């Protein structure tokens, strides 16, 4: 299986290279993907919790903002 392709543009030479990630870059890439996947889940959970709380309180997001202002 090939690694993902990345683009590198040398601004000084104005030269564009599209190449496969090195193993080290791919390892870092996978780590990032995991980190952001986790962040995405956390973000969605947070949004869900917020929506549930608003529903329990029976107010809209704008009304909540007004309360906190």
């Amino acid at each position, binding site marked *: 299986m090939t690694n*993902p*392709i*990345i*683009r*590198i*543009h*040398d*601004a*000084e*030479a*104005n030269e*564009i290279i*599209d190449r496969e*990630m090195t193993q080290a870059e791919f390892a*870092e*890439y996978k780590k*990032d*993907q995991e*980190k*952001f*996947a986790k*962040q*995405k889940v*956390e*973000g969605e959970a*947070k*949004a869900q919790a917020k929506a549930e709380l608003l529903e329990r309180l029976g107010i809209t997001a704008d009304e909540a903002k007004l309360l906190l202002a």
Partner: protein
Amino acid sequence: MATTTNYGWTTPDDTALVKDGASAIRTLGSSVDTTTKNLNPETTLADIAYRSSTANVKTRLGIGSTGQVLTVAGGVPTWATPAAGGGMTLLSTTTLSGASTTVSSISQDYQNLLIRIFGATNDTADGYWYVYTNGALDGHNYAGISGSSSADSPFATRNNVLHLGNTGQTHDRTSANNAHQILFVDYTATTIKPFIISGTYQRTAAYFEYNAGGANTKAAAITSITVKNDGGNSSAGTIKIWGIK
């Protein structure tokens, strides 16, 4: 012999004899001629004159070339070509492609760096767009304050990347309705590099906006930037970088 008050021209005394009149007038005329020439040294169209170090003697300054400005050098006026300054120079235009897009070998000849990323879309799924510098996610401390239409900020949890948008929000993958601007101040500094970032993007078809400011505290000048999306390969979009004097 008497002399005049201002220029010291020699004139006959009140008691001088008439026979000496012609000589006295010639002496006076000669002095007036010399003084007048000393005070008006210009010889050519557009010459100007300024006071020399000798009283009552001016120095001629010939006109400069087109585009030159009058300035001072060594305590006297002189014409000089103004140094080029200010303005923005487009350093690169790069189309986003692949799992990440890096612009490397960024010129170090400018004071500030303006980066604009716009029209970014990706192949596979909604995802986070983010930027990091010098090819490494770690060791870059982006910190600051933000204001946005969401409760989140452009700073990632680990503060090693700048999100193009808010950290809790993915972008719609097919929407090209996004534009982000980052200004790095003193980007060649090896101490702190202040920045401001702002932008707009679409998430579930709604528009979100954000802005933030802070500093990158990495002890190295910024020589490259990488734009990445965790939703898949980039399929469109542009990075433009300008150097600002």
